[in-house]
């Protein structure tokens, strides 16, 4: 049974048709160990990815592919990373989601895909200028809930 109903699928498909520009990859880290939301998250991602041929999904295992997980700074599941693609090379923009993207976070998922496909932050010029002056790494963790 699908998670997304036909009406949502149509809305998202239309939005993707209008707004997705360049291809976007979703790397999903799953586990064979205990994870309450991992299988739902994977199914949800599969359903969303199927709504546009500009999107692709790569499923990985946190333990079996520990080196890859480390490369993408993932130590928890379900872990989602949005990437661009240049030839065979994946481009990591540092955009991640930890936990199932349901409820309010479903719209974050959709908007993240559109954001990455545009390869542009859409920030105000002033903010862009200030961010260019950064010299040290910044790690932001935004705590959210589905409701």
């Amino acid at each position: 049974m699908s998670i997304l109903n036909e009406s949502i699928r149509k809305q998202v498909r239309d939005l993707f048709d209008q707004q997705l520009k360049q291809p976007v990859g979703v790397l999903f880290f799953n586990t064979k160990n205990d994870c309450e939301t991992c299988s739902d998250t994977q199914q949800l991602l599969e359903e969303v990815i199927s709504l546009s041929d500009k999107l692709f999904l790569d499923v990985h295992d946190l333990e079996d592919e520990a080196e890859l997980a480390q490369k993408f700074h993932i130590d928890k599941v379900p872990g989602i990373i949005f990437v661009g693609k240049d030839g065979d090379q994946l481009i990591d923009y540092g955009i991640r989601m930890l936990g199932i993207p349901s409820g309010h976070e479903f719209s974050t998922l959709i908007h993240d895909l559109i954001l990455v496909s545009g390869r542009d932050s859409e920030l105000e010029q002033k903010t862009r200028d200030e961010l260019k002056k950064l010299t040290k790494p910044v790690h932001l963790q935004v705590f959210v809930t589905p409701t």
Partner: protein
Amino acid sequence: MLAHMMAMESPLVEAESVEAMEFPDLADRFNVSGVPQTTINDGAGTVVGAAPEDYLLNEIQRALG
């Protein structure tokens, strides 16, 4: 999400959304009581609530010292 937009803009910024109920230990560690709450560099800075661009930016700059 603003944090994700900043990550898109700067190669030095990495931003993750964390579903607080799925990761209660992490949420407890940063005393998350409401959402959204943004933690900067492991607690060097915190923004409670949805903040405009300049506010989050100021907090990042302050956290970096």
